[in-house]
């Protein structure tokens, strides 16, 4: 069957990882990859409906001025598609209902959480139950982290993966849940996809800098109960080739960067199921 996977990477208003995110989709085998400025969606020139795989890249939506991705979430919830008959958010809801895939990285993840797209208990995609806030260190940091992957999570993006090494680059990467019940639910329903760990991937850690932000229970990424909606703070699109690895000059490693497998899983899933 010919590849017909169509991916969209949304940009604009401070997003800045769209280029490498689109590159990742292409390398993963997506037949069509469009970087789409949000104004094109708002002007009705492009529609989410025409795609299978929605990418929300990292960056600083509106400078993260009101808290990370807050103003960005406000835009998606309240902005009308030109003509005024449809909200942009309605396109997101339909996209999810159609069983399509959404990946949010860093600022994209912050956006999803603040929209309520994650963890979306009981498929309620509009109520915020967790947040991403300032790192315990009080600073933005760029550093690579070891991540353990939860094999019991329904996440389609991490199938077959047990561990991964990726960079985090954020100032607001700490997950906080509304209350302990929410946290418990994240665990019991296997919403937790990946956790910061020690360098041997043996256990999730709260120790800085292995856990770079003090995220509760070392959570680095979560998905909804379908496993098709996934957000994470580390940047898989920043590790697509071995030369991205901070120690590639001292270790032998495969040609492809480990981050690519997350995009491959997404494209393969769409190819098989949609």
């Amino acid at each position, binding site marked *: 069957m010919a590849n017909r996977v169509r991916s969209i990477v949304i940009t604009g208003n401070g997003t800045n*990882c769209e280029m490498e995110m689109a590159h990742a989709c292409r390398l993963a085998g997506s037949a069509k990859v469009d970087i789409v400025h949000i104004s094109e969606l708002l002007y009705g020139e492009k529609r989410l409906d025409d795609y299978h795989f929605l990418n929300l890249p990292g960056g600083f939506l509106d*400078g993260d001025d009101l808290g990370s991705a807050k*103003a960005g979430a406000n835009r998606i919830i309240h902005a009308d598609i030109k003509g005024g008959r449809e909200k942009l958010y309605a396109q997101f809801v339909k996209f999810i209902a159609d069983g399509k895939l959404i990946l949010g990285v860093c600022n994209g993840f912050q956006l999803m959480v603040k929209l309520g797209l994650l963890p979306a208990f009981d498929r309620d995609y509009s109520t915020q139950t967790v*947040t991403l806030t300032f790192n315990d260190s009080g600073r933005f940091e760029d550093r690579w982290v070891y991540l353990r992957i939860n094999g019991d999570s329904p996440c389609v993006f991490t199938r077959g993966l047990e561990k991964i090494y990726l960079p985090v680059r954020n100032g607001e990467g700490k997950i906080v849940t509304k209350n302990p019940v929410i946290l418990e639910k994240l665990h019991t329903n296997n919403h937790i996809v990946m956790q910061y760990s020690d360098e041997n991937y043996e256990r999730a850690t709260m120790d800085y800098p292995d856990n770079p932000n003090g995220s509760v229970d070392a959570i680095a990424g979560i998905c909804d109960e379908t496993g098709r909606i996934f957000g994470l703070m580390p940047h898989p699109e920043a590790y697509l080739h071995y030369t991205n690895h901070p120690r590639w000059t001292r270790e032998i490693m495969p040609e492809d960067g480990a981050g690519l497998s997350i995009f491959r899983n997404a494209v393969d899933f769409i190819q098989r199921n949609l």
Partner: protein
Amino acid sequence: MIHRIEIGFKEGIRDVLGEKTKRKIIEHLGIDVAEVDTIEVYTMEGDIVGDELGKIASGPLSDPIIQKYAIDRGLAARFDWLIEVGFRPGVTDNVGKTAREAVELLLNKKGVDVYTSRQYVLRGNITRKDAERIASGLLANELIQRYEIISGREWNPAEEVRPYVPRVTIEDNPSTEEIDLDVSDEELQEISDTRVLALTVDEIKVMRNYLHNETVLNERMKTGLNEKITDVELECLAQSWSEHCKHKIFNSIIDYEDENGSHTTTDSLFSNCIKKSTREIREDLGEDDWCLSVFVDNAGIIRFNDDYNLVFKVETHNSPSALDPYGGALTGIVGVNRDPFGTGKGSKLIFNTDVFCFASPFYKKPLPKRILHPRRIYEGVREGVEHGGNKSGIPTVNGCLVFDERYLGKPLVYCGTGGIMPARILGEATYSKEIVPGDIIIMTGGRIGKDGIHGATFSSEELHEDSPVTAVQIGDPITQKKMTDFLLIARDRNLYRTITDNGAGGLSSSVGEMATLCGGCELDLKKAPLKYAGLKPWEILISEAQERMSLAVPPENCEEFLDLAGKMNVEATILGTFTDSGKFHAYYGDDTVAYLDMEFLHDGLPRMQLNAKWIPPQHKEPDFPEPDDMGQALKDMLSRLNICSKESVVRQYDHEVQGGSVVKPLVGVANDGPSDAAVIRPILDSFEGVVVSNGICPRYSDIDTYHMAACAIDEAVRNAIAVGGSLARLAGIDNFCWCDPVESEKTPDGQYKLAQLVRANRALYDYTKAYGVPCISGKDSMKNDYIIGETKISIPPTLLFSTMGKIEDVRKAVTMDAKKSGDLVYVLGETREELGGSEWFALHGFTGNNVPKVNALKAKNLYDALTGAINKGLVASCHDCSDGGLGIALAETAFAGGLGMDVDLSRVPREGIERDDYLFFSESQSRFVATVFPKSREEFEGILAGNIIACAGKITSNKTFRVYGTNGETIVEEDINDLKKVWQKPLNF
């Protein structure tokens, strides 16, 4: 109606900004505060009714999971002091702007103004005086911010803080003044001084003579002007003729007297040193010339491959950073971003590189008036560049920090940015610029305010008591990002003909300089979009308000261009037309407010004639004994500010965005070794890469700026070579930061300082030529002095030399960390007794006289050979020897690799060195420490044959750094982790 919404954290949620503020209060000010909370305050003015305030507070302004809010009442409770810090009127409030947009979208209505402030809620045993110190010495910069202190005892919880609205209210009287220049010299000087024009009386007289010219006067009369100059014209000329824009000193005619009393005349250092070298290198390259545009545009352009060009520029933003470190540095980085962005047809920005020069953050002496503590400058600048770089999505790939007490008066903030552009767009070459008369002048991006008025002239004089507040701006990276997103699409659709940025001098410079491409312009200042009413026409013309580009758009494309801007929510405004009239013609509505001959505006300035006299300084030779404990000496050196790890700063800059990171600033087994240079891959499906490096060594200026400049160039070049770059395609950017070199009452030693400048430029010519590394652009900042009262502080003459080059295959790149035990340790290059100006001498309080000297011929041979060895994959690691010399390079190589090293100093190639400490810490140039796989030994030595190199040791699997002295005894035996700890400690905050 005015409302206040306050947002704070819920009980049990960590307030990390509060914690960070508490640490700073304790560490910086020594005040023992127990607890600090923060509350964000949004003051709103506009038509907000009913439950709308609740919607705003619970919607975009607060996070329901962790935050709580209060509307029109105070949120703070139980405190000893509350300090609220907000902006003064007219200061850029980025958060306020975002909040306004969010509120307007939420309520679906316009006309709500939002101003932000922050409350710091303090608990602890603090006096009112302490609270004052905390407010003025740490939390608020009174130049741009105001604060209010409330005592907990006087606080009535039921009562809100009185709302303060920093609205700009100026009388809206956009009149133009005429100024009579037919007055005495004293009055002319007064005109210049009161208006911060930085013009000399002679320069104003040139304007007066111009206005007296009969033809000029007749033409002026026809437009409604007369023999008096308008304030618009005077300000416009002052900007265009400023040192900042015209580089008067670099273009002056200099009589140079050397130490033997013989004289030589240099007719423009710029033409005869910098441009000359580039011209000659290009001639030598002939058909293979890879320079495309040098010195004529906002940045230099070189060829990357057949399909792409690279663009590079480095700027400084020193004076504003002295006054407001955060805003100054933020504006510095987003400002230099617009240079490559506005070069040729415009380029996509692919890297930033920053170099900061500060006084020690641990400075303990009393501070001269109006000077901020170096730690405050350090952290403010660091944060400004963090926000500017990270939020723009441009990786900060490389940089350094330099410390010297003389940067107390003026810190140096160098910001550089590289870009990449398609070599052709729709078949047309992109590296040059043209404008056709009739093209429309469009300004796009931010609006114009009073911010940044007189930036160009202000930086053309020393920092003094009355330095204007309006010269400070705060950049807005997101407004700029929106604009660049839009313009890149407009570029690829070929909607505009030419683009340039609005930087120093504002529209006066951008439109004025663009107009030289066609021969004139007509500009209506009344059409310019303003942040608030009340600007006078001259202020509109020269305001340096940020995030603006000026474009020449063919009339037939205007509609499409403006439509695209509107769609992408970017403001774009037609301001006038480019002409071939030969005139710079500005209107305000129907009235002519400036009418100047283009030729006079750009070439009317008389050249300066200056004198330089070189008297070589003599410093005391050091007389300290060789240390008994070299291990301790090494640790002392590793903890020097100029040598120690800069990881805490590096980590806070995103160095990987855009996905092409290859050699990161931090490398090695624990990702914490100091990289020599950066390598990135700008095109993700290609292995062709870009190498970026810097060289800077101001301490050598105390001995001889000729060698200082030679060493800076050599350092930048060898850093690039060390990671796998090559001399085959390496371009340079010179960036001179000097203290005023013009002899005057204020500067009695001007002739010496000018001689220092001449010597540095001669070295620049000699060494760039010898290496074949052409300068493609540059910058100078000539007034880095501080004069208030009896105190004068001048920076050491400082040249930053930055390089950008091509690396054919990034997979061949090399990092500085030792790789495997058993690898052989080579020292490449010769060590001589060259400790003048070294860190080792400085540690003992000496300068000395034997400054390092560069042998360009030997160095070039070594560099070419090393490039060959690296390309063959023979080199496991390579690290340049710079500050602290061989000892530091060896130790860093070992601990970055997490491996031990045995090294024998008796095998190190040397000349005329007797003492082991001198051999270990001499800063002779053009040297590397390289490690080589044992199996590659013969091939490596074969390729390097003819160069001075030696195998001096090997990498070991134990964690011991062991050095044998020239007499065979062990002189250093230290655990690498101890060395690393010492090296990491000083700036780890």
